[in-house]
């Protein structure tokens, strides 16, 4: 019975709210005048000005099970709070449909801006167009959207091509004069990874150009899915077909750690050096333990902060870089030894 009473009570409250709601007044949102300092004066009804709460920013993250995107979200929230905005974070779980639904809710809730890590470069287009039609600016972070007709107001990501070049340099550094055979663990689905491998190959090709001996030869490029178990499977197969590989470039930390497990199982840990990408906590830890030689590390914290700063600039009508690519930095064991984050 209690349940029922509560239900009636809420219904009554709801109807009461309906009854007194729909006004047709006008509010003075801001009033600037030269001869007085009063800034807000509601014309009638309640005033609407709240200085604290400027609005909400909706952030649909690719997946919150990957710490990288969690860091972006946390830093966005922190930065936004400084400017008086609130960030709503949702997990799109790598599903375009879920992400589209989340964008719909941000539109319904009248967000000041929407930020996404697109789950798919193309299929997210229609959802972005809806936000465009509602006049809400859409910003992408880390991953880009290339759908035709979808208007992206700003993008902040990693300079993946430059990062790939750094990875190539690290590979040259670790293999030394001897050179050797290299396996690439790819994840072709992600444009960011395509750029990483392109950068990597460019540096390796340039290195090989005037060289008779000690060349670095990329013998295989397999799909490691960007995941530990896929990286493990691909590497296990590769060391069967190319038992004498000496280097592996993995496009992220999880697949690199999968590769390491495979090397361990095959007893080839000392023969094969791994260069990875990302600089997530377990990746950094692996570098400290010598499992991975080096990572070009990304800065998801800066990514989140700059995204919010761009949104604030946009809403202020100021100029901002429409595409910001944050350079990566090479992180080796010497850096890991000094890193207070690691044990």
């Amino acid at each position, binding site marked *: 019975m209690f349940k029922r009473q509560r239900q009636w009570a809420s219904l009554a409250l709801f109807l009461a709210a309906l009854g007194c709601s729909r006004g047709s007044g006008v509010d003075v949102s801001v009033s600037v005048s030269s001869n007085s300092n009063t800034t807000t004066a509601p014309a009638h009804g309640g005033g609407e000005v709240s200085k604290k709460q400027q609005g909400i920013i909706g952030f649909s993250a690719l997946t919150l099970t990957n710490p990288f995107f969690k860091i972006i979200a946390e830093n966005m929230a922190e930065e936004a709070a400084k400017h008086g905005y609130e960030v709503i974070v949702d997990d799109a779980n790598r599903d375009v449909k879920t992400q589209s639904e989340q964008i719909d809710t941000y539109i319904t809730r009248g967000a000041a801006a929407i930020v996404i890590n697109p789950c798919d470069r193309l299929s997210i287009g229609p959802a972005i167009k809806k936000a465009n039609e509602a006049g809400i600016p859409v910003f992408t972070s880390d991953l880009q959207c290339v759908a035709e007709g979808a208007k992206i107001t700003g993008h902040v990501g990693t300079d993946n091509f430059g990062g790939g070049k750094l990875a190539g340099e690290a590979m040259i550094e670790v293999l030394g004069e001897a050179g050797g055979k290299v396996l690439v663990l790819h994840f072709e*689905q992600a444009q960011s990874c395509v750029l990483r491998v392109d950068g990597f190959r460019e540096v390796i090709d340039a290195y090989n150009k005037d060289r008779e001996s000690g060349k670095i030869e990329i013998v295989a490029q397999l799909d490691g899915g960007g995941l530990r178990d896929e990286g493990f499977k691909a590497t296990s197969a590769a060391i069967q077909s190319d038992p004498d590989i000496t280097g592996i470039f993995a496009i992220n930390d999880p697949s690199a750690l999968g590769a390491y497990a495979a090397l361990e199982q095959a007893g080839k840990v000392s023969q094969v050096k791994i260069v990875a990408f990302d600089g997530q906590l377990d990746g950094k830890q692996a570098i400290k333990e010598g499992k991975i030689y080096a990572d070009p590390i990304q800065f998801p914290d800066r990514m989140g902060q700059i995204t919010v700063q761009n949104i604030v600039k946009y809403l202020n009508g100021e100029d901002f870089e429409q595409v910001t690519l944050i350079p990566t930095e090479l992180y080796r064991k010497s850096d890991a030894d000094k890193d207070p984050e690691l044990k």
Partner: protein
Amino acid sequence: MQKFVSQYGVVFVLVLLCAYYSFATLNPQQPSDAATGRNLAEFISKQHPTASVLIVVRDSDDDRAYAASIQQTLEAANIKPLDVVAGEPRDIVGELRRLGTAGTKLDIIATQHASAQWAVLGETKLKELAAEFPSLSNVQVLKPSSYTWPTFLTRGNLLSIGNQVAVTAIIAIAMTMVIITAGIDLSVGSLMALSGVLAAWTIHRMAGDGDPGMMTLAFACSAAVLLSALIGLLTGVMVTAFDIPAFIVTLAVMRIARGMAYKVADGPSPIGIESEAFHSLSAGTMFGIPNPVILMVVLYVFSYILMSHTALGRYIYAVGGNPEAARLSGVPVKRVLLFVYAICGALAGLGGVMEASLFSVGNPNSGVGYELQIIAAVVVGGTSLMGGKGKVLGTLIGALILAVISNGMYLTKVDSYTQMIVFGTLILIAVLLDQLKSKRWKF
């Protein structure tokens, strides 16, 4: 009591949920339609008949209509607005600077809530401009008052729930039939992907990069749906002719169809479809209602009639209740099973085409995990996994319950990890209710 729960339980839960979320999302709503535009303009013409007015809105169709209604009403009252700016914050700053530089006096900026939220129309920025340009030293920003109304019950939100539920609910019709026959179909998610990719591939093959004609679209869509139906039929054959459990057969078909989708798409990247006509299948509306919702309602009416007013419907229940008894009383058990699996394939194919149309791509990665969402909708809707019992309309309510909870949790800012826990718990509760109905509760 038990009869009440079994008859009206799910509807009651849905109503309760809607009431709860309406209550929980009671928020100030910010109107910006033509009528409020007229109101705002009338207010200006009464209170400030000699003011010079600048109209500022966002660059969207709705906002432009709002701005136009302000402009017309003001002009009717002999106030000529300085200008209408429909654009981004920077456009407004540009316009204000232009007015300031020209020394044009500005008294009122008429706008709506969203633009008033922009920092350019905030106190700090406007004071800055006032200090720089004397003609901007007395500016008021006016916007319509807000009113309180549940965000959950706004037109935009309800339509978005309808859109979200349509594909799941349509496939759930066939899943209900399959589950009533005591079977299961795990392949629907993969079939969706395959059908979407196939439609996209066929359109590409037939139209190249040009705009596909209506015939091409109709052919591609029906071919995709028919092929999915055929795969469903084959599933049915394996289940009936060789007596393999449906769980195993459809688990295998799930992998096969997913693999075929990747093959057709030649990898994990989606095939784009550049066709407005194809996109409007799912994105278009009729009488203001989205096409998928209309299709969903039509299919539910059909399936309701099929299940409760035809011999075939009674056969489906009979097969699930007791196949041996059904066979002995002359029910064509095998043909009934073939029918439900073929329909399941066809509706999964239809769902795939609808998704492809909505996103304008055939995506081999789409529909992952949908089978579980769909089965959840069927179970929450009160259909027994033991077979023989269930109602398609219950399934519709079940799908709506899941969609309303998902939507409501987004609106009330419940984080995604909690959402998973809630959905899991909900499914457990639904199964418990099912047990209660069949009086299998023993302590």
